[in-house]
């Protein structure tokens, strides 16, 4: 039982971190209707830039704001160069453009910082929490706990931001209907700039947490890719959905690996979330929290 709880909690914790990555996708989709496949590459870029700056001798506290600036610039440039020219196109075209963007950003990150694996020290150790180990005999990583705590705080802040602040409301208006938002005086370009900046910030936090946990390497992009099943489960436009989806994916992935994995040779984590999402889509094609799509003829 304890072991089960251990695995479950470990999975839930990584699930919160998946939710954090998924949030970046949700933000962009909510604001501009674009599924930004490149969000994963941005996570990678953020982590690599921070690690690279730190490795070149800067302190972490200096590297972070510099990376943030880079992320915001990257976001604004993307909006201007990639999304604006394609704004009237089919959403599949935009999706494919973001696939191209993914390759570009990944290449750029590696061109600047090289392809070596880098480590990222955040000062939190990846060891089991003493207290839990002694009292409940469960080994749950201290790092995981703190990381998901940070992620949870960030997610809550964003949820509040969206629903309670003026800018948050403006963002939701833009997501609903660009024309209508323009007509009541909401400055579209500013809003998109803000959205990309926030998405960049989310990518940075996600990159730091995942990078410190797993090392900063190209495989990070596959972690980010796992946000897709999270979004399928939780819907592309829902912040709470991303959280619930993340938790489900994180927990089920770990449980499957531990309990089913040994019987089939292991390595299930690579495809289990996707298959789960696929099965889910067959039942509910628009996700748990997604909007029903009604097509008129």
């Amino acid at each position, binding site marked *: 039982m304890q072991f089960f709880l251990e695995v479950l909690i470990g999975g839930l914790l990584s699930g919160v971190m998946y939710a954090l990555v998924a949030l970046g996708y949700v933000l962009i989709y909510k604001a501009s209707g674009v*599924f930004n496949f490149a969000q994963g590459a941005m996570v990678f870029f953020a982590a690599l830039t921070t690690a690279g700056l730190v490795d070149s001798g800067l302190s972490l506290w200096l590297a972070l704001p510099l990376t943030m600036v880079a992320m915001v610039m990257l976001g604004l440039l993307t909006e201007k*160069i*990639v999304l604006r*020219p*394609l704004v009237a*196109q089919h*959403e*599949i*075209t935009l*999706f*494919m*453009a973001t*696939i*191209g*963007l*993914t*390759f*570009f*950003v*990944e*290449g*750029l990150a*590696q*061109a600047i910082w*090289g*392809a070596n694996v880098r480590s990222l020290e955040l000062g939190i150790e990846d060891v089991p929490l003493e207290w839990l180990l002694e009292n409940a005999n469960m080994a749950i990583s201290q790092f995981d706990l703190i990381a998901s705590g940070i992620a949870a705080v960030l997610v809550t802040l964003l949820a509040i931001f969206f629903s309670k602040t003026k800018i948050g409301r403006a963002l939701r208006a833009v997501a609903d209907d660009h024309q209508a938002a323009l007509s009541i005086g909401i400055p579209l370009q500013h809003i998109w700039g803000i959205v990309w900046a926030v998405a960049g910030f989310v990518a940075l936090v996600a990159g730091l947490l995942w990078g410190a946990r797993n090392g900063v390497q190209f495989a990070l992009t596959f972690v980010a*890719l796992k946000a*897709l*099943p999270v*979004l*399928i489960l939780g819907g592309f436009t829902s912040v709470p959905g991303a959280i619930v989806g993340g938790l489900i994916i994180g927990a089920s992935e770990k449980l499957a690996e531990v309990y089913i994995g040994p019987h*089939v*040779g*292991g*390595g*299930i984590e*690579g*495809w289990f979330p*996707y*298959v789960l*999402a*696929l099965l889910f*889509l*067959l039942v509910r*094609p628009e996700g748990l929290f997604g909007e029903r799509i009604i*097509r008129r*003829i």
Partner: protein
Amino acid sequence: MLYREAGQFKATYAEDSQIFPIRQDKIGIALILAVAFVGAPLLSVAGMLSDYTFTAILTPFLIFSLAALGLNILTGYAGQLSLGTAAFMAVGAFASYNFMLRIDGMPILMAFILGGLCAAAVGIVFGLPSLRIRGFYLAAATLATQFFIVWCLTKVGWFTNYSSSGVITAQKIEILGYTFDTAFSKYLFVLSVVTVMALLAKNMVRTNIGRSWMAIRDMDMAAEVIGFRPMQTKLMAFAVSSFYCGVAGALFAYAYLGTVEPEGFNLDLSFRILFMIIIGGVGSILGSFLGAAFIVLLPIGLNMFMHFLEGSVGINLPSGISSSFELMVFGALIIFFLIVEPHGLARLWQIGKEKLRLWPFPH
């Protein structure tokens, strides 16, 4: 002026529905085929074309064209976005390998066909979700296909004949006692297979089956009202597309690399083939070839450019940077094409032909 169709009349419907109705086009394709089938081997025998041209350029170009054709049938003509192309290639490769391995006296062409059929069967199974899911949800679902199949081929030892490294070595290509083991004999083999399959594909897209795919792609509700059956049409697209990718995968193993492992058919390869059809032109047979040529030649061109930079301007670039640059250029080109010419090189080619009709007059 060169390209005028004036004077070329079509007196029957048969004439009107030819693949190359314009005489200049007919001459053009005849020339290309002559160079491909006869000219290149002659040059090779005369020592003017190195093996490298075949192994690094022509053969992979043909094989990728075939895979791009497969993906184009599914995504370009039938409108089902798929990120699992490499997985179907893997099925074709490993199935052919197992047929050759375990059945004595299996003819190689039959093994390829059977491998393609296995890929088609897998395609139908993994295409079932397309009946409920559409757009990029479907793309995300095809990721499940990609990851699961590669995992399967890795974990289930039977597929790789229990090889400890997971790598299989493809058997030799032997037809009627003749072994295709030189670079240019393999090239001729691949050329023949690809030519035949491209012709079959062209025939399919201009007849009822092709129209059914395009109808489902453009407006599936209206297609249903006319009497097209979405399920049969979509699954047929998956089946035919996967067959093509499966044969391409088998050729990939047998006539190009020689040794393959499941990991070699990864997501990166799927993306590459998707890029080929985006750049070449979705929904176009010609586009599949143009896109494949572009993607095959690009790294080579890039390499030459980097060497030129290093040599002439004296910049010393760190090693490994060319692969990063390759990624950047790919990505930038995709975005460029989607913005400037979403229908790809095939459309640019058509526009070029339109201009040729008027040349040298401006309008």
